């Protein structure tokens, strides 16, 4: 379950990395183009660019296991959401604006650390697949001694 105060962070211009794995437990990483927090934090929809997500989609159709890491460039504040894909489909035209806004926000955030917007805006971002994920766990991922701890264990401290 994603706490309400975390939803805004996940939907902002943070890096969104996705891991899936195949039937032989061979993992794969790719960059997602933002998420939408749904059902009061019980679910996420993750947008995966069609251009780079062929393997991830095959993995998700095989077993549904997914990890999504959110990380803010300026200070490495990071969380990771673990879950299962419950639905995989093409993102609708009405979701294109959300994906484009996300990329703009990412370009702003990366601009702060010196990555020029012209580079960020070249990332392939549309069309996308929309992957609906049932959230099973949320973990602190900011580098440090408690990276990997469940969010509830470090309650009271921002992740």
């Amino acid at each position, binding site marked *: 379950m994603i706490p309400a105060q975390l939803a805004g962070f996940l939907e902002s211009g943070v890096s969104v990395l996705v*891991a899936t794995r195949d039937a032989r437990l061979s993992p794969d990483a790719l960059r997602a183009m933002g998420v939408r927090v749904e059902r009061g934090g019980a679910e996420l929809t993750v947008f995966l660019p069609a251009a780079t997500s062929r393997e991830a989609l095959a993995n998700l159709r095989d*077993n549904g296991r997914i990890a999504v890491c959110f990380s803010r460039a300026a200070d490495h504040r990071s969380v990771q959401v673990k879950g299962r894909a419950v639905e995989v489909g093409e993102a609708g035209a009405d979701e294109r604006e959300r994906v484009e806004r996300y990329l703009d926000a990412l370009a702003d955030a990366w601009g702060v650390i010196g990555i020029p917007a012209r580079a960020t805006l070249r990332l392939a971002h549309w069309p996308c697949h929309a992957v609906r994920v049932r959230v099973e766990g949320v973990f602190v991922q900011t580098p440090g001694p408690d990276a990997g701890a469940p969010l509830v264990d470090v309650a009271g401290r921002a992740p």
Partner: protein
Amino acid sequence: MIRLEELGPCFPGIVPAQIATCGRDGEPNVTYLSQVQYVDPRRVALSCQFFNKTRRNVEENPLASVLLYHPLTFEAYRLRLRFEHAETEGPLFDTMALRIQVIASHTGMTGVFALRSADVYEVLSVERVEGLLLPADPALEEAAPPLPAGPLTEIRGLQVVSDRIARAPDLPALLAGALEALDALFGFSHAMVLVPAGGAELVAIASHGYGEAALGARARIGAGIIGCVAQRRRMLRVAGVGAELRYGRAVRERLEAAGGGTLPPEVPLPGLPDAQAQLALPLLVRDRLVGVLAFESRDPLCFDDWDEAFLGIVGNQIAMGMDRLRPAGEGTGPFPAPRLAPAPERRRVFCYYRNDDCVFVDGEYLIRNVPGRILWKLLGQHRREGRTEFTNRELRLDPALGLPAVKDNLESRLILLRRRLQEKCPEVRLVPVRRGRFALELDCAVSLLEKECG
């Protein structure tokens, strides 16, 4: 398959790499990596600072997938890896640990944030991530950077730098000439040379690009890139200093939040406050550190493998030049002189009897009082610091020798000492080099004993 060597610019992590792993229970995990180190054409090493989920996963299931990014083109490369083993010592570990030590020392986390292991992975495949980037927009793209200068230009430039070093009449001219030429011919715009200043400090005795302010700048051994290079005696290059510091600060905040106690304050960077790339190398003569040569740039991509190799050559030349022109005579000098090279054929044993204030050589009386104390001081400094040249002035200023303040007759005492050595121990000589200075020449090994007689 793309060769690993072709990914050279991706390794410094200017755009951070990412790793996906999977536990035995089938749960995938993905996170950023702080360091990916090229090991050989078939292997890379990843840094492990904390025993985290990634590490636990690869111990259960060795397969991993890493995305590396080219810092200029933003192309991504997917490395399929298999965890091989973890190293906790040796050259690979030292190289990776040094980089973390630099960041830890800057962010007040020395000893708290350190490399736990260098985790070595076999590279199963390397492929470019197709479709990651849209075609470049010519209106937004800048012109391609110029190609690096050809080998002929580099060799000729190196020749000029080498000439300046070889022909310099003194140490300031050597260092200024070399640093100027490195800027004019190769664009190394910010450079300094620091030497051991006694204790745990280094002091800058030459700089280029910083104005006068950098001269006399100090670096603590073991702190920051310069101090770490001096301590470990290894070349180090840090690209994306800003990114490394952000990472270090993130760890620091987590440590403090986790009740890690009060950490010491962050140490300001020496030199450019907004440096994005640093390269420092030890100046070594045999196993002796004569200084550190340090470069900085605001361009995070400024230094690469070529610079390491090239500046390594220049550094060796500077070190040998500094050794040749070491300040002699005046005080202890900013760095110690070498020990005498010739292979000694015999050993002479000098013994100083404290309560009788006299020196014996191989059991035979040599000299006493002030000339004896002078000889003892010279032999002692030679043994401890490798000094071979001394001044009359420093003898006069040494209260332990007990010379009278006026009419000290130092010259005649030295003449006495010289003659006595000539008679009884011709392998040890005091040779005047110029006015007020003399050299200690040894044609034998020397043992020094200090005793009470009785």
